[in-house]
């Protein structure tokens, strides 16, 4: 790195940091979050991916927790099954990924889905980008289910379910298998 860069930079350090911890910054984020979630909700209601349905009434009441119904795609191991997903958005969405889990009576039996509904999918943690959306997360989950060749739980399911945090985002997942 060229040395002039560092010299030029250091004076800029203090001001933005202080500035950003103010209420103004928090409010800016809140406006971005609300506007974007409203847009996403609208487009998911109007133009959902096949087999996806959002509980729009619930989402309109509380924009930070959505319930999404998902059907297993035809001609896959999950054809005919119905699932429920829960999306929780932190105040830092879309900079932070949403917390996505399967909920309800039917948790898909899949090598990347734990019996408590936690999903091992890299875009939900380290590969998240603010260019992704609820819609693209749904599509990834559908494709993850569709490419499944054998219905079974992750090999460490029992141990994980006993010891994990309630929030799957606190799990440091180890994504070493993209083939399932």
């Amino acid at each position: 790195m060229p040395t002039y860069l560092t010299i030029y930079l250091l004076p800029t350090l203090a001001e933005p940091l202080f500035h950003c911890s103010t209420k103004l910054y928090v409010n800016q984020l809140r406006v971005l979050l609300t506007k974007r979630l409203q847009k996403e909700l609208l487009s998911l209601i109007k133009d959902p991916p096949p087999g996806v349905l959002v509980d729009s009434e619930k989402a309109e009441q509380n924009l930070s927790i959505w319930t999404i119904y998902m059907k297993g795609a035809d001609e896959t191991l999950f054809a005919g099954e119905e699932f429920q997903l829960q999306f929780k958005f932190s105040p830092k969405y879309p900079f932070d990924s949403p917390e996505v889990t399967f909920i309800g009576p039917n948790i898909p039996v899949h090598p990347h889905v734990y019996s408590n509904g936690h999903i091992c999918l890299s875009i939900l943690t380290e590969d998240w980008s603010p260019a992704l959306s609820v819609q693209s997360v749904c599509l990834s989950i559908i494709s993850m289910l569709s490419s499944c060749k054998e219905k079974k739980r992750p090999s460490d399911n029992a141990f994980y379910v006993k010891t994990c945090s309630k929030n799957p985002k606190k799990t440091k997942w180890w994504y070493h298998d993209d083939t399932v």
Partner: protein
Amino acid sequence: MGNCLKGSSAEDISLLRGSENGAETSDRLGPLPPPYREALPIFYPSPNVSRPVSQLTEEEQVKIAKRMGLIQHLPTGSYDGCKKNRECVICMMEFLIGDNVRYLPCMHIYHVKCVDDWLMRSFTCPSCMEPVDAALLTCYDSNN
């Protein structure tokens, strides 16, 4: 196969999570066994680091300053109605003529306000995931 799990990452404490924190810390089941042990908190040299500057280590301060400086080096401009980039994918709003935008080396553009926040967390383009610093450094090299 299936064993996608390595450990449990620690709480990322920030002022924005505030009230949520209290409830969430209590759902832990005591110390986690070795394969799920706590990782060090992920350091986001981000604008919403809640600690005052005086509590940041020197290394962190330098890291943040460097990142801010690199971001400042990325060109900005006002949106001229270019048809290739119509929408800022971070806020999902269409660009309006005159909006303050930042150009990344991959030629993706975003509102300055939207993308600067992201670049403090991850120095990659949200759309193509192209690392921004690699491209920047190549620029410097070819200029020198």
